[in-house]
Every structure is written in C-alpha cells, then in structure tokens.
C-alpha cells in the first residue's frame, strides 16, 4: 500500500497546501545518494512450462534505480509540461525500468527487439493497451494525471516497469552510482522521499535556507 502514497500526495499538494511558494532568488539544490542495500528480487515470470526450449536470453532490469522527490512542492510549481520521454523494449526488458516524468509528458514506447511486444497498463492514473507491434516501431502515450503507472508486456510476463508521473518538477532519478540532484528548490521546509522498486521507502525532512545553497541528503534503502 505504500506505493499508493505518491499519487495521493501529489494530488494533495497540487490543491495548494502549506507548501513554500516559488521564489525567484535563493533557490537551492538537494543532492545525495540512494544506496540500495537489499537484494532486489528476480523479476516475477510465470514458469515456462509449455515451452519446448530454453527461454531466450534477456536483460535484467536495473531495480536499484530510485527516484527522489519532494512530497510537498512549492505552490505555483504545477504547470503542465509538454515533454517527451522514451521507454524502450530491449532484450525483453523495459529500459529504463523506472521513468519519472511530469504531467503532460508523452512517452514513446519503442520496440528494439525482434519479437512482438504489447505494452499495457491497468493502473488508475493511465489505463492503456498499445497492442502488438514489431521491431523498429514505436507507440506513444500521454500521461495527464499524477501517480504511479505500472507497465507490463502482455506477451512476456517477466517484463514490467514503473512510470512515476509528477504534478511538479522537483524530482530526480538516480544515476548508475545512485546519485541524484534536485535543483531550483525554493527556500522552505520539505519532506523528501526516496522511492525504489514500487515503494516510497525512506522519508526525510529538511529546510532549504533563504540564501539557497546545496544541501546533502543520503538515503539507505534496505
């Protein structure tokens, strides 16, 4: 149930609560590292009982990749963006495994495999089914509501990914070393959340001073 926090909180702040206001001057940055110490479980795939051969080699998704975001964003930070992002299907895995976008972003689901894929989601923020399409083709989905969208392939049960749709721009996805950086954060008190593999796992509170600056905040996800 913890995974459901993100859409609820994003909607709550979008309505305008006690969050700090956007300010032109004194904006700060929050950076740090998310260390995932737990061993991510293997992708859940249905046993290939009816197959006549070994399953083809597939890439394992990078489940250590995390998203760090402000739980309550400054008021006035909720403008819609018309951005684009790509989630590829390669070696029977979604790449990236975690994609964080703002509301209004269109995601292109490209297929770089030689086989069919069929991307779909039954998540409440965005239900869609792109049907089967072959290599070299791409289909797009626009995300207009904040929340967590779980993405699957209908043909390959081991394929899954997350798309986190934010109503604001104060979030960052960790790099290969687990580092993140959120820039242009107005002065004020914030709750900052580290999300990993379907759940908001660690929460911290911190204050960006009036004169801005760079604040450090590390997380350990166990």
């Amino acid at each position, binding site marked *: 149930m913890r995974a459901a926090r993100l859409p609820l909180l994003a909607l709550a702040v979008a309505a305008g609560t006690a969050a700090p206001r956007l300010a032109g001057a004194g904006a700060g940055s929050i950076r740090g590292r998310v260390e995932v110490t737990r061993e991510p479980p*293997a992708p*859940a*795939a*249905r*046993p*290939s*009982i*009816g*197959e*006549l*051969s*070994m399953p*083809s080699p597939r890439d*394992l998704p990078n489940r250590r990749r995390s998203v760090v975001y402000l739980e309550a964003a400054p008021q006035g930070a909720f403008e819609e963006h018309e951005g684009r992002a790509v989630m590829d299907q390669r070696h029977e895995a979604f790449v990236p495994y975690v994609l964080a976008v703002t509301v209004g972003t269109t995601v292109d689901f490209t297929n770089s495999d*030689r*086989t*069919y894929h069929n991307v*779909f*989601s*039954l998540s409440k923020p965005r*239900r*869609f*089914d792109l*049907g*089967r*399409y*072959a*290599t070299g083709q791409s289909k797009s989905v626009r995300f207009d509501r904040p929340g967590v969208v*779980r993405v*699957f392939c209908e043909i390959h049960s081991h394929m899954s990914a997350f798309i986190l749709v934010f109503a604001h721009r104060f979030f960052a996805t960790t790099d290969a070393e687990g580092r993140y950086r959120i820039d242009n954060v107005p002065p004020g008190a914030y709750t900052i959340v580290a999300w990993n593999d379907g759940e908001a796992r660690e929460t911290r509170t911190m204050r960006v001073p009036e004169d801005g600056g760079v604040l450090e905040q590390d997380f350990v996800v166990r």
Partner: protein
Amino acid sequence: MKRAALLATALSAIVAAAGAEPPAEPRRFALGVELSAAVGPEDRGFFNYTSYEDSAQRLARLSLTAEWHLAERFALLGEVRDENLGRPRVYALYARVRPWRDRAFDVQAGLVPPVFGAFSRRRYGSDNPLIGYPLAYQYLTSLRSDAVPGTESDLLVTRGSGWLVRYPFGWGSAEPEPGLPLVNALRWDTGFQVHVGSGPLEASAALTQGTLSSPRVHDDNGGKQLSARVAWKPVVGLILGASGARGEYLSRDVVGALPLERRGHYAQKAWGVDVEYSRDRWILRSEAIWSRWQTPMLERSLGALGFTAEGRCKILPGLYAAARLDRLDFTRIDGPAGRVSWDAPVWRTEAGLGYAPVRHVLAKVAYQHNWRDGGRVRERALLTSQLVVWF
C-alpha cells in the same frame, strides 16, 4: 529397463555437459499459482466433458507450476493440478537441458509438453480467450484405447455418446468409460523430445509412451509414439506450423483379448496444420487436425477431422472480445442402415468477453452453442462465466 537405463545415462551426460559452465545468472526458482473457476449450466449433452469426466464448463482448477534453474542450461519444470477438489495430479514434470551454449538445441525429458499442434502448449487459463476447449483437443469420440468394437454395429450404437462407451473386446469392456479425443489437451505424455532452432524456422520431435489421444505415464502396449512439428515464422506475428504423429494406442489388454488372427499393432496417425497471425489488437488462430485410428475388428481404419478458428480483439485496456468456430467430422462406414459417419459430427460456436480489472485477475463470460448429428442430446447452449486468478 534397458531403454530407461540408456536414456538415464544419456541424460546424465547431457546434464553434466550443461553444468560444466558456471551459470551466468543466479540460480533461480519461479513458482506460479493459477486458480480458475468456471460456473455454467449442466452440460446434458456432454459436449464439454473431458477424459477426467469433468465438464470444462463447470470446472474449478488449482494449478501450481514451478521452474527451477539448477544451472545456466539445465532446469526442472513441473505442474500439479487439482480439479474440482479431486485428487491432485502431476500434469508436467520434466528436465530441460541445452547441451551447447551457442546452439539452439534443447532436450526435454519426463512428462513433457506435446510437440503436436499449437493449442496444447497454451498452458494457462489466461492464454485461452474463451472458456471451452477446441473440439479436436477435448471432445470425446466413441473410440477407446482399452476396449474395441467387434463390428460396425457395435461402434454405431455408441455414435454421439463418447463420454461413456462400452465395447465387447478388451480388459476395460465391462464398464463404460470415456472415449478418446483426437488430441488430449488435458494430459501430457511421457518421454523425451528435442527442439532445434530459435529463429524463423523451428522444429521439434518427441518419442513418448502414449499417443495424442491417449497420453500415458506408464507404457501399456510396448509401442512408442513419434511426433514432430515444424514451425515457420516468415514475418513477426505470423506462425505457420505443420505436425505429424504416429503411435500405438491400443493397450496390450485389448490386443490380448482379440482373436489370434487379429492381434497386432494398431496405431493412431495424425497430421495437423496451424496458423497464428497477430497484429495490433488482434490475434487470429486456426488449426486443422486429421487423425486416423487403426481398428482390429473393422475392415477400415477410422478417421476424424477437427477444424477450429478463433479470434480475439481488444476493445479497451483490460477488455477483449473473442469467438471460436469448431467442427469435428468423421469418416463414413457401412452400417445396417447404410453408409454413415462412425461418430456424430459436431459443430460448436463460442463467443465471449474477457475483462481484467488488474493484471492478475481475468473474468470471462462466454456463450457456447453445440450441435451434434446424433446422440441423445443433439443441441445444447451454455452460458458460462469463469474467473482466473494468477500470480
């Protein structure tokens, strides 16, 4: 025993070869659970009864599947099923080995998936867009593997009554028992198989104990079935398959009960073609299966042709519509009233909707209509719903 020892030795060598290289991935164990429950009216015409004497339209099934990768190229797979709270049965249990790392060549041994046709390997309730099975894979004809008719009249008396058949010859002649389908999709056969290819062209062959109609764990006649399938994928989304099988289907008890001059080897021979085309929201599938059984007491062998065509179209995310057309026809023999098909031909149409509110839950509702040119009940319509939950 000698053959089994040879097979075991060969497998051991293959497994040893497969295990020689360190596994690239961590050893992993995957477990799957599927629970399905179909609720429909009583099938008074026995159109949907299976060889386990259950109706596919009134069936609760718990299925546990497991796949255990002991090494990079060696895995054990199995499935245990319980139907209608009966005795759990081992449905699949086999070893899968890829002897050479860089060659698409696989060997499977044990209670293995059938290589013939396409439907039998669609393992999960969620893979079947409707509730019923194709006629060729489920409908019980009036033939048995443990009892045989003495005359054409014996056979014609049972026309359209394959769910319970009694014949004068054989160990099982005393009690009526279910007949044989063309291909039994509810049981798998025991033996070993090889599979070659992973690209546009793939081929599989299997040597097993039973036959398509009568898969077996224990051999009951000393004969073996050889079956094979070739699949060609000329473009992504299109699969063309051709299958063949030949195996002895009559048990030694039946053959032993026959007059001396009739004792011999009696085979089921079958040929099949299948096609699947999928694109966007559509999947279209069709199969044709021609089966012929040699019979000891009749002058001619008995043939049957099964044809099925089905389509599925997604309407909305999580919602689809599907339909299937089925036909089962039989060769003609001379009876007291003239020339007539040895079993009653059957038509079946089925159409339905499937809705998945979440990924692991699928609810189906389907309307099925059956017509049969013989038997006590000649027509039966069934409105059935089914819930499938898996994880």
